[in-house]
């Protein structure tokens, strides 16, 4: 009890620190770097969505790292929950016919919707991550409708691997063409502002990210749902 009290006091003191820092959080004019992003973003990348330009091009290296984090967490969760040999998961109860059919019917439109989101990532809000999450929700639907359903792991894994590798390869293309990893300018034609085929390699990368995120999140859901339940107990 005392510990919890001390904990609350500590949180309050941290609050005081934040309050002391409040003046820093007031609105300020754009800084020099971000001013460049805003003013030159269209000129340099042709992508209508400036956030996408930053995420995929100016700070594309971060995003590569971000994709890696996701990949890593999913692999890690899978590694932690990996099935021990000889353990077969218990069969689960199935949902009603209606739900199963509906989920199968809905699967394709939802995936399509996800794809729509990441294909338009450079034009409208949303992009690879959001689209990927939508695709994962389609998979979730399938999994919920029929818990014994085993996802086509091979297929997912192939998509996961090759989209990730494709991302790196795109970076190499930039390196080869301009001498800078993940470069956009000078790789393919930037196209016209506010069109689907514009913004150079940004849509390409976002599609790859969308595929990768979608397959990864699907794997994650599958891992969590079908996790090995048998503990080793107290060894």
């Amino acid at each position, binding site marked *: 009890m005392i510990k*919890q009290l001390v*904990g*609350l006091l*500590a*949180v309050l003191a*941290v*609050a005081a620190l*934040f*309050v002391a820092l*409040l003046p820093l*959080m*007031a*609105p*300020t004019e*754009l800084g020099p*770097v*971000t*001013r460049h*992003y*805003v*003013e*030159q*973003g*269209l*000129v340099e990348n*042709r992508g*209508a*969505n*400036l*956030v996408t330009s*930053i*995420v995929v091009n100016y700070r594309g290296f*971060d*995003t590569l*790292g*971000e994709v890696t*984090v*996701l990949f*890593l*967490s999913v692999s*890690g*969760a899978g590694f*932690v*929950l990996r099935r021990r040999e000889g353990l077969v998961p218990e069969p689960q109860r199935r949902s009603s016919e209606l739900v199963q059919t509906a989920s199968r019917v809905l699967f394709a439109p939802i995936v399509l919707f996800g794809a729509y989101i990441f294909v338009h990532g450079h*034009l*409208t*809000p949303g992009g690879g*991550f959001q689209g990927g999450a939508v695709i994962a929700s389609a998979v979730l639907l399938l999994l919920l409708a029929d818990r014994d359903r085993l996802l086509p792991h091979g297929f997912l894994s192939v998509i996961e691997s090759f989209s990730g590798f494709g991302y790196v390869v795109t970076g190499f293309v930039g390196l080869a063409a301009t001498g800078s990893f993940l470069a956009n300018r000078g790789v393919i034609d930037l196209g016209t*502002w*506010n069109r689907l085929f514009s913004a150079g390699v940004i849509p390409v990368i976002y599609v790859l990210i969308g595929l990768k*995120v979608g397959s990864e999140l699907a794997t994650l859901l599958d*891992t*969590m749902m079908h*996790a090995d*339940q*048998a*503990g*080793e*107990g*107290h060894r």
Partner: protein
Amino acid sequence: MNLLSLHALAVGTAIVLILVGLAGALVRRNLLKIVLGFSIADSGVNLLIVTLGHIPGRTAPIIDDPKLLKDAGSLVVDASKVVDPLPQALVLTAIVIGVGVTALMLAFVVRLYAQGKSLDIRDFGRLKW
């Protein structure tokens, strides 16, 4: 600063969320609650960062309207009309990273539960001193 402005509200909410999340992680003994606390604190941090880039009265950094350009001829954008897009880009990354960490933590919780049949953090302190 006007205390009833969106900006002030967002900053306040963000800080409170961070603190509530941390307090939850500090006070609750259930492993899932601890993870939940960090998840809430993460939301708070993300909100705070986006708020740092917010400038009242400006639009989102999506240039689908020629009115946002400086002049019709070039593609140079008028920087005084949109909010700072950089923190938004950072938060996008942070959200995904956050969910990754959460997923891994939950995997740990599931595994720990499978072995210890408990969710109380005090039952998982066999290594000490």
